[in-house]
């Protein structure tokens, strides 16, 4: 009787896990359109609820006290974080949550290791990978969080002998892994020491992995850490031999990898280049030549207003500078006034604009900009010559024509938004300083470009005031 009860519970649990996996898959499928995305999120979350509830039926759970403690702490922190967080702080929040996923998997792996029943090498490999990936995700995400929230310096940090330190670290990790899996006692037989050593090395690796990466490469790092948090859950699935962890973890892992790939492509760089070269920190001497390419033509608010008033099609190109200046609400107001004035207004968003994938879209959505006027570079570039005015707000490298025209430029080959092809381009900028990549932007010197110097938010607000008369 007891046997058959156990059997039935385990069948129910596993069937429910299949259902939960289906709900995750269906939820992600619904994310492919903004109309169904919200429903997709609900579907996915009900899959999670189901998976968690049915796990509580498992016979190996004999005491619920600590579960209740953990869930209450986690749920209240999660709830308040999600409700209180400003949308502008979203990149930091996503980074931090990635880290929490990583550390949770690390702890699950550690708990399984220390209870000592797992002597099977395959399971020990899974435990090792869980702890390693989880640890790297955790410390890497904390550094990314620090950089994004500007708690620590966002600049790429490069040092001599970086490759040697990294190789040494990887060697030590390999050694510690063999020690854990084969239990030869070369170093120690104490499980705590082995586990502690691996955790320490994994944390160190995570830090060293993110520290050299600069602010503008953050979209790649966040996407990659997102992928790692899924892979850590996946590895944990092998530790406890649980299919739903593997399915869900693999979906997240794949999602993060695709985003990473999209971000790299949008910068025309390889992942290795993003991770190891600290772009912008290394000065490329090949580009010294583009010192002066012409004259900069500044413009004032009144003249800008006159040209905008006459425009029938306007393209707004936001970049990280718009997020820094918190100008999105003023930009939306300007867009509405232009539309009321009879112009067609669209927003062209480069995939790597901002600090995480989709950053600009979320900011503009928060400012109530309708999502159907948010377009991608490949939609707008072919019709660029029909556009009267481009307003570039806080974007620089993603509109740099050198990416198309100058083979010696470090960003040559990167897809850009070709605002230089529009009839007029206004560039809102604080000063003539170079962008993140540290390269001069010939756009500023083109004959159809006008520079509107000053704080982006103030400039846009003044334009709004002019329109309101």
């Amino acid at each position, binding site marked *: 009787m007891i046997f058959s009860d156990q059997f039935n519970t385990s069948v129910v649990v596993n069937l429910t896990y299949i259902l939960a996996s289906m709900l995750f898959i269906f939820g992600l499928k619904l994310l492919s359109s903004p109309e169904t*995305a919200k429903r997709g999120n609900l579907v996915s979350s009900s899959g999670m609820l189901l998976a968690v509830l049915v796990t509580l039926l498992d016979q190996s759970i004999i005491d619920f006290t600590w579960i209740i403690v953990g*869930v209450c702490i986690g749920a209240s922190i999660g709830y308040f974080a999600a409700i209180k967080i400003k949308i502008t702080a979203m990149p930091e929040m996503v980074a931090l949550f990635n880290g929490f996923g990583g550390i949770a998997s690390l702890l699950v792996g550690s708990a399984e290791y220390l209870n000592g029943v797992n002597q099977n090498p395959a399971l020990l490999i899974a435990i090792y990978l869980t702890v390693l990936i989880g640890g790297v995700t955790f410390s890497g995400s904390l550094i990314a969080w620090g950089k994004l929230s500007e708690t620590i310096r966002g600049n790429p940090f490069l040092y001599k002998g970086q490759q040697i330190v990294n190789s040494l670290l990887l060697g030590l990790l390999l050694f510690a892994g063999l020690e854990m899996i084969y239990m030869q006692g070369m170093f120690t037989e104490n499980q705590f020491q082995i586990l502690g050593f691996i955790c320490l090395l994994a944390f160190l690796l995570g830090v060293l992995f993110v520290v050299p990466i600069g602010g503008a490469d953050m979209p790649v790092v966040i996407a990659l850490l997102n992928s790692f948090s899924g892979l850590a859950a996946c590895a944990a699935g092998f530790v406890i031999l649980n299919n739903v962890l593997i399915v869900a973890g693999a*979906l997240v892992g794949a999602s993060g990898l695709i985003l990473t790939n999209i971000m790299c492509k949008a910068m025309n760089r390889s992942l290795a280049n993003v991770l190891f070269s600290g772009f912008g920190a290394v000065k490329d001497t090949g580009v010294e030549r583009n010192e002066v390419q012409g004259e900069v033509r500044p413009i004032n608010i009144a003249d800008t207003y006159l040209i905008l008033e006459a425009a029938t099609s306007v393209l707004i190109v936001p970049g990280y500078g718009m997020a820094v200046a918190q100008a999105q609400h003023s930009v939306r107001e300007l867009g509405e006034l232009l539309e009321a004035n009879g112009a067609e207004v669209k927003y062209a968003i480069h995939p790597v604009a901002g600090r995480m994938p989709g950053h600009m879209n979320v900011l503009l959505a928060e400012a109530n900009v309708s999502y159907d006027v948010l377009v991608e570079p490949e939609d707008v570039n072919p019709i660029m010559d029909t556009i009267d005015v481009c307003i570039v707000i806080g974007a620089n490298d993603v509109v740099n024509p050198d990416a198309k025209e100058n083979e010696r430029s470090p960003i040559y080959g990167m897809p850009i938004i070709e605002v230089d092809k529009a009839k007029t381009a206004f560039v809102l900028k604080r000063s003539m300083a170079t962008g993140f990549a540290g390269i001069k932007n010939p756009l500023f010197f083109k004959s159809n470009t006008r520079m509107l110097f000053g704080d982006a938010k103030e400039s846009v607000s003044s334009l709004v005031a002019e329109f309101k008369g």
Partner: protein
Amino acid sequence: METQIILLLFVLVLSIFLGFELISKVPSLLHTPLMSGANAISGITLVGALLASGSGFSSQPLTVLLGTAAVAFATINVVGGYLVTNRMLGMFKKKKTE
């Protein structure tokens, strides 16, 4: 044990391919909600955490403590991740055509 692991590897490989198919259809417009939603899904490790946390304090105090910490972190991920995704997706609106 070996058969089970092989079977799970099979599940892993298929899921990765499925993930690639699904995610490549998500427009760049929704990449941020995709990431925070995926983040919430990676909180599935909560299932493993629950098993460790509920294994009985008197017999396995260390497993329970580590498990409980894992439950807390994973729950932050799940609850926070889904709620913030929901909040973000609520902001994506299409203007009514006049």
